[in-house]
């Protein structure tokens, strides 16, 4: 092995080890906690860490700032819910179908939009997301603005395949964590593969990449498909967890911002950024909403918005750069 590679190989192995430790810690985290509010908070935080990582694959590693990811989230949620209510397909499988349809949607969106660059691309994704929202809102087959209630399948009891748990919410923690782990692993694999290097070239300078025979458009499409698939799976898990979906809760423009936000504040294009961002952001926004926002006073929004401004200005490379061992400092020293 080339001597310059060993540092990278060792670092990647260490990252995998750290991830395993983090996974174990997060897996046992809810066991001593019995209060529903906190458990729900943990599940949502982990789910958003996974969603932000899914976004990060397209937005961070490939540099395409999508502000329409709620579309893929919503498509995943709707496909799995419709498969269950209309065809009685268990959501355990419907989740994969939801991801596949979301990936197809991402390719369909990418085909016209990846010709656009910079802000033109970002705004086009906002618009595509909004079109999806309006169509679902007015489409009776998917329930229109009334949405879809996920039914309790009788005579089945507790079922992992149907993601149906009446007495205990803990299994959803397993799903959320498994989802987040899959997205992390996808990002880890991409970082080490040829794709990761190609995508970063596409991100940094598409013209230069092209002159080096990098196929820019197919690279973006591949990143979009993976990102869309994972986001759709997240949507399907969310649908089963909350038991009710409508366009407002799974397809709104607001959600399209909430999905990338943890990645942006934690560190775009990094392995740990999405998790760090979610751990800081989601509890903060949930707690301030439940303690300060109840009266509709807007104080929670002010804190939330102010925090986003501050972190973006003071830590443009993301909060995860504050962590001791995964920051860029070590890499800089190594090279």
């Amino acid at each position, binding site marked *: 092995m080339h001597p310059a590679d060993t540092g990278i190989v060792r670092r990647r192995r260490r990252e995998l080890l750290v991830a395993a430790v983090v996974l174990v810690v997060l897996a046992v985290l809810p066991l001593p906690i019995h209060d529903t509010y906190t458990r729900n908070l943990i599940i949502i935080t982990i789910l958003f860490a996974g969603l932000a990582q899914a976004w990060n694959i397209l937005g961070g590693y490939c540099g395409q700032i999508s502000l329409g990811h709620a579309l893929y989230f919503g498509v995943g949620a709707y496909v799995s819910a419709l498969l269950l209510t209309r065809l009685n397909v268990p959501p355990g499988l419907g989740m994969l179908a939801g991801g596949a349809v979301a990936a197809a949607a991402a390719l369909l969106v990418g085909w016209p939009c990846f010709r656009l660059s910079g802000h033109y691309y970002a705004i086009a994704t906002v618009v595509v997301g909004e079109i999806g929202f309006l169509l679902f809102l007015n489409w009776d087959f998917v329930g229109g603005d009334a949405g879809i209630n996920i039914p309790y399948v009788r005579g089945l009891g507790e079922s992992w395949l149907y993601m149906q748990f009446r007495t205990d919410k803990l299994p959803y923690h397993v799903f959320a964590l498994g989802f987040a782990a899959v997205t992390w692993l996808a990002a880890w694999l991409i970082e080490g593969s040829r794709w990761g290097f190609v995508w970063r070239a596409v991100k940094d300078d598409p013209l230069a990449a092209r002159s080096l025979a990098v196929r820019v458009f197919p690279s973006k499409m591949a990143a979009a498909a993976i990102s869309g698939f994972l986001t759709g799976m997240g949507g399907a898990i969310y649908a089963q967890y909350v038991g009710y979906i409508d366009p407002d809760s799974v397809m709104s423009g607001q959600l399209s911002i909430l999905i990338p936000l943890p990645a942006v504040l934690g560190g775009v294009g990094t392995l740990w950024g999405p998790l760090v961002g979610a751990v800081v952001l989601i509890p903060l926004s949930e707690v301030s909403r439940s303690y300060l926002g109840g009266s509709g006073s*807007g104080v929670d929004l002010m804190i939330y918005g102010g925090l986003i401004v501050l972190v973006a200005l003071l830590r443009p490379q993301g909060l995860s750069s504050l962590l001791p061992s995964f920051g860029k400092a070590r890499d800089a020293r190594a090279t």
Partner: protein
Amino acid sequence: MTVTLFAQVAAGGLLMGLIYALVAAGLSLIFGLMDVVNFAHGEMLMVAMYAAFVLWHATGIDPLLLIPVVALLLFGAGMAIYRLLIQRALSVTFNRGMVQIFVTFGLAILIRGAAQFVFSGEFKSINASWLNGKRLDLAGVFLPAPQLAAALVCLIAFALLLAVSRTEFGRALEATREDRDAVGLIGIDRDRIFALGWGLGTATVGVAGVMLASFYYVSPNVGANFALIAYVTVALGGFGSLLGALVAGLLIGETEALTALFVDPSLKQVGVFAIYMLVLMFRPRGLFGTL
């Protein structure tokens, strides 16, 4: 369907289109100058509407006469935002594009929260303008006076923006847009020009806000919808192009009105978005965009 109904709807689309165009012009000006998309643009519109409401409520002065006051207030707000936040965001070396998006987005949430805190969530409206209740009858087509006045003011504001672009300041703006580093060599203070550009951009949306407030309800979330239309307008017309904003604004106003008439009112925005996607397929930089 009668010809009168069609003319009525088309006229309504035209009047609304002019307001869309003016809201978009402020956004386009800032983008063209420094490549920053202000995701708090809709909130600036909302602030202007509340400013008009508060001033009218406190003094009883007709909103029409408040235009210069609100425009001046918003000019100051725009300059302050540039000096406090954007200047810093531009000097970031890492991740600049994303930092800009999320700084202005965070600002938008902050302003929305502040509006909710001060005014609570309820809808407010100005209902004692001299214009209220009046209308113009053009051969059976009725044009409500507030909308008509708003459209006229928007046209005047556009003319003023064009006039500004011919002044010494306008030429400095143009030069800074062309090459933000070289202008320092000929004695132009880049940050001052950027700050003034932000002031001008938000003052423009301020004018639109006052006129809108004379016939549209005000609430902390009113900006979001207009902002979305404004982004589409700017991207459709081409970032940085004043003429593009005007043409695209009118096109969007008409598309929205006619989709509502012929297809379904709840799908009027889908019509707008479809036109936008169609144009971008053939002109990725918008109708008049060069950036």
